[in-house]
């Protein structure tokens, strides 16, 4: 063998390792999806903190390569991506995210007007509506549970539950949940307008009263005890959520609270986003089931929004005239903090430019987080 043919063979071998040689249509499609996510995050500012890591993760996960045992892919045991992915598969990223959420959430709106909690409960119909539809579409009950949780509009909860109930669907469930959370400004307003009258949209709610420090400290402790005694399987999420909130509200653990809502949640968000994105390798992800999950995810958001708005209308039948709730905050019960509350504010201002609903919408919004974590605990308890 002369030197030139040796070089030629080497070059030929090298070419078989390149992405170009291993490219498939599926990889192309997924790369396009990744680019669209990044575009939506930068150009439209749809949930950029999530869509940038996930979108870029999709690009990382869909660079085609030859399976030569080089420990490159996220599904290859021992690879760097696989090690980072353990936080998702073992389910410890979501509770850490919840710790940060707890440390940054002000539950004052909910404490000052606790009846708003019930809106957060009503919006969980989205989860079980999607569960029923998934069963009709031929999914197993555990898979249907993992798909239904998309309706909880809470990414960490969706990842946590799907990693336990149906790990094979986790990529599709996570991408679907985050995509629709980003699309909340597109999905919710038409439904809110359709289900409410002009008169209802301009209802002015009483301003929330000032909540004392003691009440704020009691909330995470009692919240944990009441919800977790009822649904112990929600403990990883609810425990961390309320713990984070106590760090914030106690007033004596400022440094810990700042770490939880700052560097910690940012680090975990980066790792979670990039690994969830990278887990969508075309070979694993592009299936008919993924398409079905996307369809069901959209329906679950629609059902959750409708349930929230209709519940407020129903609830108003029993409330005194000066205590009525503006049904435009019903959509906020689906979680998706704080985007769905912001939608209530924006739509409310369209009809009365001096009616600020944001503070009121934050009540059902954070109640939705608690409600979806409780619902996830129930599904895990029944189907896990």
């Amino acid at each position: 063998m002369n030197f030139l043919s040796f070089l030629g063979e080497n070059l030929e071998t090298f070419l078989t390792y390149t992405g170009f040689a291993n490219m498939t249509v599926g990889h192309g499609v997924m790369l396009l999806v990744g680019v669209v996510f990044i575009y939506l995050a930068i150009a439209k500012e749809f949930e950029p903190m999530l869509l940038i890591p996930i979108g870029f993760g999709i690009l990382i996960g869909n660079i085609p390569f030859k399976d030569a045992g080089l420990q490159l892919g996220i599904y290859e045991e021992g690879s760097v991506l696989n090690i980072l992915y353990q936080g998702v598969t073992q389910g410890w990223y979501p509770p850490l995210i919840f710790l940060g959420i707890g440390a940054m959430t002000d539950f004052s709106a909910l404490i000052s007007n606790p009846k708003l909690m019930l809106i957060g409960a009503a919006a969980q119909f989205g989860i079980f509506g999607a569960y029923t539809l998934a069963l009709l579409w031929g999914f197993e009950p555990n898979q249907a549970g993992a798909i239904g949780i998309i309706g909880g509009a809470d990414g960490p909860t969706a990842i946590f539950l799907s990693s336990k109930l149906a790990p094979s669907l986790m990529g599709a469930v996570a991408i679907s949940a985050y995509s629709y959370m980003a699309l909340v400004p597109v999905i919710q307003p038409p439904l809110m307008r359709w289900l409410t009258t002009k008169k209802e949209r301009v209802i002015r709610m009483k301003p929330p009263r000032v909540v004392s420090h003691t009440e704020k400290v009691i909330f995470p402790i009692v919240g944990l005890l009441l919800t977790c005694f009822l649904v112990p399987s929600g403990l990883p999420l609810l425990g961390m959520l309320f713990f984070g909130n106590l760090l914030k509200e106690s007033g004596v653990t400022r440094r810990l609270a700042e770490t939880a809502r700052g560097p910690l949640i940012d680090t975990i968000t980066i790792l979670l986003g990039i690994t969830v994105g990278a887990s969508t390798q075309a070979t694993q992800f592009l299936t008919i089931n993924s398409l079905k999950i996307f369809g069901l995810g959209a329906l679950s958001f629609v059902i959750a929004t409708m349930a929230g708005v209709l519940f407020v209308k129903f609830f108003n039948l029993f409330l005194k005239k000066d205590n009525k709730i503006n049904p435009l905050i019903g959509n906020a019960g689906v979680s998706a903090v704080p985007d769905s509350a912001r939608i209530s504010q924006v739509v409310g201002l369209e009809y009365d430019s001096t009616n600020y609903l944001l503070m009121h919408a934050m009540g059902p919004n954070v109640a939705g987080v608690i409600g979806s974590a409780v619902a996830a605990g129930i599904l895990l308890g029944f189907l896990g």
Partner: protein
Amino acid sequence: MKQKIIFGLLLFVCTLSGVWAQRTTFLKINEVLVINKDNFQDDYGNKFPWIEIYNASPGTVDIAGCFITNDINNPRRYPIPKGDVLTKIKPRQHVLFWADNMPTRGTFHVNFTLDPDQSNYIALFDSDGHTLIDSVTVPAGQRPDISYGLLEDGWSQKRLEEKLRLNSTYKEKNGSELWVYFEQVTPSSNNKILDTNERIEKFKKNDERGVGMTITAMAVVFIGLILLFLFFKLIGNIAVSLSHERAMKASGISKEEAKGIIQTSGDIYAAIAMAIYEATELHDEENTILTIKNTARSYSPWNSKIYTLRETPIKK
């Protein structure tokens, strides 16, 4: 001093809870084969009676230092040797002890055998030598190669009764005895081999459309949040009435006037504060900006001029 005592107590409680998490009380005698005629062999190729121990806890438990005995009057009969990594039983896993009366053959060979003609008492004692962890009396009249074991791994009578109460078809399929005979012995593996997820199968059969799940789960979600609502409604009322009292005491005003003060929301106070700031100049520092945003001064060695090697020279 007082703080040190409290800290010490907390440390003690934490240590105790850590020890409890590792406790051997979760160990269960799970399956026993008294007459091993043509069945499972040990590492030496011999067939002897065996005793299976199961770790029913969600954490690893080290069985080293515990005692296995077949004599109620001699709880310390076979001390399980320390220093063998294999004595650490992983969560929901098993270890097998050979009752061959040949302890020199290794950690898992005990110094007694089981009597094929009589009933056999087998017990597991904790490392103190007198705390009983679990015991069983294998009845006389055992048949060859048929083991005697718990219906399902690590189950107790209470767990079985709960299962029978909650699942009407369970008794029909599995019987109602805690200890049963296994024609297919399962050394070092689960007593009940599951080929399906029972819970999921149950849902598939009884709740095809998911209506039952929806009703149950939504009821639980509502109950949870209604409980929270009721509690904080109550707490809110108490907080408001306490605030009234405080306002009445501090300002000497009537209850009605106090109500007016308390019902004022936080944003009104913020607006008043802002208006005072804008309208008057009764403040000490002229440069202060009143804002609801947190002030942030980000610092990192990477952007600090003190730490950079290429500091801009200062002309003198």
